[in-house]
């Protein structure tokens, strides 16, 4: 059985999904790829927008999400973040 993902891992997974789509993706794709419920995905996206990891682009037809420099930085430094939180019991 797979271990439950930590909050940091979920954020990484969402950002990776957004990045993999050339940094622009529809919410339905995030939902499908990130393996989260709709409610949870909304909650995480709201948090990521607030933290400026992701920007929401609204058009009359739909809305898409794009990764920011801060979001990319999070992905690049993920190993260090994860190592720190694991060692100091902050997961």
């Amino acid at each position, binding site marked *: 059985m797979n271990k439950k993902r930590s909050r*940091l891992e979920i954020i990484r997974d969402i950002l990776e999904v957004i990045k993999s789509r050339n940094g622009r993706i529809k919410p339905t794709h995030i939902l499908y790829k990130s393996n989260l419920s709709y409610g949870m995905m909304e909650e995480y996206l709201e948090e990521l927008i607030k933290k400026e990891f992701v920007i929401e682009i609204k058009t009359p037809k739909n809305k898409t999400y794009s990764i920011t420099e801060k979001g990319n930085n999070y992905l690049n*430094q993920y190993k260090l973040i994860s190592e720190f939180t694991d060692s*100091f*019991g*902050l997961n």
Partner: protein
Amino acid sequence: MTYFYLVPQSFLKFSILMQIIFALVALSVSYFSLKIYKISRQREIKLFGISFILIALSYVIWAVIHSAIAYPSLIEFAKIATENVSRLGGIGMLAHVILFISGLITLSYTTVKIKSGKIYYLLLTLGIISLVAPIIVTRIIFEPIASSAVYNLLITSRILSIFFLIFIIYNYFEEYSNNKNKKTLLIGIAFCLLLLSNADFIFSLTYYPAYIMGHILEFIAYLFILISLLLTIKK
């Protein structure tokens, strides 16, 4: 200047150096923690950093108090009147214990992973009230702080520290049982040593070798924390 512990004169200057080392290790942990917070924007990492800043500040104040005892010329240099020296020493000790306990409360709150500011402020207020209330009630804040009141303050703070450290240790070992990370275990052991040193410091009010032993235990604890930090950021 009031002596708060039975401190062997030969060890006093050495203990100041150790307190500065403890402050530097705690500051290093908070520096890296806040640096990682800047990237991750995770609240618990920020709180963890703040808890170590509070602990570091408490050691800085402790070192300043002991420096005033070890180097009386500092008091003359600062032009502090004799009648104010004891009062300042008492207030300094109060600031030291409040900062240390606040650091441990912040750390305990971080480890429970509950997102509720109300619970945090409740814990913080309870901790500070239990330290400050007896002093205010006896009104000694308006008089040079009496040694007995300072002893009570020190014992209460040590007992509170032991309580919060047991809580923190439990969480670290629980975390270790889940992640099997040796660095988590090392930090858990470091907090066990801090718990022992806090228990030991209670006896140092009457038995001076306990003061030396307390510092040695704390030194090993901070060494473990530093090793764990270095292993983490080296990767």
